Structures are given as structure tokens and as C-alpha cells.
């Protein structure tokens, strides 16, 4: 599903962010990406989301190489994944409904399909009834769940989450993780970057650990 083959990333003027990292996530697999800050967690996510390109090595999504992609191909790769950000990255001047609908609008779905899917996604994250609210009227946890709804609305094959529970209390974190586990049962691959050790221990899932850009456990 998602495959890193001897991937290195060197930033201009900086050191090696990643050195010879290899791992392979199967369809329906969930893994935690962990390590101290600066270990290379964000770099892995950015490479997997085609936000950055690797210096060496291959990154493959469903067998398709995504590390040397033409700009015009990137949008279509992104439609296969759902991205969840620590800072939510919601559009503040759009309603919850419009925020969640965005991936489907850009992919060219009809309004009927969109409305149906958005309600289902909001229902999943227990935000039904808040469709017409604006993000600033919601709590941090609620905004994070809007972000999660947006990431799953398109039924992506891969979900990449960067500290998705960073702003949630432990109880809500566990619920979000249970939701993720349900997605994996439907074949969705999930990679969660986090340094919440308690959460990792509770979940008993695969852990990919980075230390100074190298894979130390995977």
C-alpha cells in the first residue's frame, strides 16, 4: 500500500532529515510513527503526502511511485489520501459542512453525493447538527474532528495523521483511535505520527520509530 524503499531526505543547507528509511504498510494496516521532535516524523508524512520529494529512494502508493511526480499529477494522488493536521488547517470563513465537503468539491462530485457523504462523515465524528457552524465557534477537539471528517469524506485508501490527538483529552483520543481502527477494518491504511506514548501503548498497533532520521524500530 504505502512503501518507503531506502528513502533519504536532505534539506538544502541542513543535514539529513531521513537516512535510508524503509518500511511497508499493508492495506488495512495502522501504524504509529514516533520519535523525538526532529527525528523525521514530519518529513515522512510530507514525503508520503507528496508535499516534498525525497533526495534518494522510492516512495510508492499502491505501486505508483510518488516521489518524482509532475505537479499536474499531485492533486490526483492527494485524492487517494486523507490528511489530518495538528493545527487542523480548516477554512475559517467556511462552515463545517463546506470544510468537510472540500475534498469532494475539488474532485468534482455532484452536490447530492457531497451532501450525503458529508453528513455521514460528520455523523461518524459525532458532529451532526454542527454543519452550519463556523470553525471558530467550535472547541479544539471539535475542530480536530472536523479535520478528521474532511480526511475520511472521500473514502481514501490512506490516512496520514500528524499528531491528531495533540489537542484532545485522553478519553476523546481513545475514541478517535477506535474510529481509526474501524477504518482499518475496511481496508484503509493509516499512519499516525505522534509522541503520545500512553496512547501508543494502549493501542497495541505497529510502531515505526525514528531516531535522528534513521529507522530504529519498524
Amino acid at each position, binding site marked *: 500500500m504505502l512503501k518507503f524503499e531506502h528513502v533519504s531526505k536532505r534539506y538544502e543547507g541542513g543535514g539529513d532529515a531521513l537516512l535510508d528509511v524503509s518500511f511497508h504498510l499493508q492495506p488495512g494496516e495502522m501504524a504509529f510513527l514516533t520519535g523525538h521532535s526532529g527525528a523525521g516524523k514530519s518529513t515522512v508524512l510530507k514525503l508520503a503526502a507528496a*508535499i516534498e520529494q525525497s533526495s534518494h529512494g522510492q516512495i510508492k502508493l499502491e505501486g505508483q511511485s510518488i516521489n518524482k511526480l509532475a505537479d*499536474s499529477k499531485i492533486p490526483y494522488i492527494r485524492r487517494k489520501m486523507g490528511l489530518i493536521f495538528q493545527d487542523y*488547517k480548516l477554512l475559517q470563513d467556511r462552515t463545517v459542512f463546506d470544510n468537510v465537503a472540500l475534498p469532494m468539491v475539488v474532485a468534482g462530485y455532484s452536490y447530492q453525493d457531497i451532501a450525503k457523504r458529508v453528513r455521514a462523515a460528520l455523523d461518524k465524528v459525532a458532529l451532526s447538527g454542527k454543519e452550519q457552524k463556523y470553525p471558530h465557534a467550535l472547541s479544539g477537539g471539535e475542530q480536530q474532528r472536523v479535520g478528521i471528517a474532511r480526511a475520511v469524506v472521500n473514502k481514501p485508501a490512506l490516512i496520514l495523521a500528524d499528531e491528531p490527538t495533540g489537542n484532545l483529552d485522553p478519553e476523546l483520543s481513545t475514541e478517535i483511535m477506535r474510529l481509526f481502527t474501524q477504518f482499518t477494518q475496511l*481496508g484503509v491504511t493509516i499512519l499516525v505520527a505522534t509522541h503520545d506514548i500512553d496512547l501508543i501503548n494502549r493501542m497495541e498497533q505497529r510502531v515505526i520509530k525514528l531516531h535522528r532520521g534513521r529507522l530504529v524500530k519498524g
Partner: protein
Amino acid sequence: MLKDNIPQHKKTGAHGVMVQPDFKSKFHAYLDTHAHALFSSLGRLTRTPAAFMMTILVLAISMALSSSFYLMVKNFQQLTGNIEATNQISVFLKPTVTPAKALTLQEQIKLDALVESVQLITAEQALAEFKANSGYAEAVNALEQNPLPAVLLVLPKNSLEDEEGLKTLLGRFEKMPDVELAKSELQWINRLRAIIAVAKRLVLLFNLLFSFAVLLIIGNTIRLELQSRREEVLITQLVGATHAFIRRPFLYTGFWLGFLASVTAWFIVTVVLLFLRSPIQQLSEQYSGQFNLAFLDYTETLTLIGVTSLLGVLGAWWVLGSHLQALKPD
């Protein structure tokens, strides 16, 4: 708190990947996004009414100036278009020439091989005509003596295009001792035509310059808009938007700016002309002229609106081309 059942996902098979929309629903959705971009871009513009109005007015004034120059030349041309092109030569005689001598001169010029006909207008006739047509009859009556000379109107045999023949004749007349001045109307008509040609060039130049200004103003407005919506553009890219999708609302913003500015420009030009119409008509009556002030006609109005709207889209396209490439999530 979170729902356990996820029924929607189960319909889609093992990978949970959604079925791609078919062509028909994609086409409808495509039209929807266009309609949405069209109206949301207008809505967005009106959310900052002061800035919006100022931009529209700056653009409208530019286009109104450019259209006014065009109309000025068009009206001037209409005025001169009524003048019949003739190669008639006016030979002004010296004040000392007696009427009898003038008649002799008329007969003498008639004999010239290059001359078709000669008509004599005596000083008295000229004065009477001037009194009747100029509107300065009172002033003329106050004069003690007739200031006008006798004139011989010579119609040459040569064609309108034969400027050399005309010059030969002019030279011949000017050498005559009793002739004060010989002037061809064709000469000043040609001069007028040359002036109009220059004015037309100037109009073209002004139009190009003002169009370029409109392009720059709209480009700059779109650039600011892009900056203020930077976050939105980045997020939209992250959820899989193509460049075309991101560009669309900005192109429509450019269109609206151009379109609304051109409609405003049309109003400005029309109001200015209505304001000028009555004094111009009074002026034209003084010259007993049948002059109808020309406004922007149907085709010209459509051209103004079409060209300015297009400039809006082009201005936006131009800025997006250079700035969108640089805008990528990090």
C-alpha cells in the same frame, strides 16, 4: 460519544475507496463549480465594498477616458466628414483691385488650359453672405468699410488626387500682381485629414496604454486577493485541488472587475456626453450645422464591455501563472 456504526463505508467494498462519479454527474458538478465560482467571487468582492468600489472606479475611469478620446475623434471626424472634398481654389484679390479689373482677371484665368470654370464673388457679395451666415451682422454693420476682399473661385480641370497640378496652378495665381493670396481648400482638407490620422493614432495609443493600466490594476488586485487567501489555496491543494480548480474563482474575480468596470465606464461616458450635448448643440447651431453628437453605439458598447472583461481575465491569468506556481504547502 463517537458513533460505532459506520454504515456508509460498508457499501464500497474491501478498500473503502469511493466509486468515481460518472461522466454525466461529473459534468453537472463541473457546471456547478463554475456557477459557484462565478457568484462566490462576486460575493467575495462585495464583502469589502470600499476597496471594491475604489478598484472598480479606478478601472472605470481609465476605460472612460480611453472611450472619451475615441468618441472625441469620432465626433470630430463626423464633423469633417460633411465637408465635401473639392479641389476648388480661392484666389483672394488685393483690396485695391476694382470690380472691373476683377472681371478682367476672371476672364483671363478662364483661358488657362488647366482651369474648368471661374466664379467671381465681389467684396459686396462676400460681405452680404458673411452677414447672413455668421451671426455677426450687428458687428459688421458697425464697420465703416468692407474688410472683405473680392474672391475668384477657380475650379481646376485636374482630378482631386493630382496635387502637382494643383500646386502649379496655385503658383501661377500667386505670381499675379493683383492677387493677394491663392488657397486650395483641398490643402486644408488634406491637412485636417492628416490631423485626424494623427489623432486616431493617439487614440489607439491611449487605448493600448489604458488597457495596459487596466491589466496591471486587475493583476495587482488579484495578486493581493491571492495573498489574502494564501491559507485557503494551500489547504485546497492539500485536499487534491488541481491548479485549474484553484485558478477558477480568481479568473472569475478578474472577469467581474473588468465587466463591472466597463459597465461603469459606459455610464460615465454617457453622463459626460449628456452633460455636453446641449452646449454642443448650441455651438453647432451657430454654424448652422446639422451636427448630432455621437454616443457609443451598440457595437462599440459591446466591444468596450467585451474587451475590458477579457482584460480582467487576462490580468488574473497573468498573475496566477507566475504566483500560483510558487504557492505550495510546506
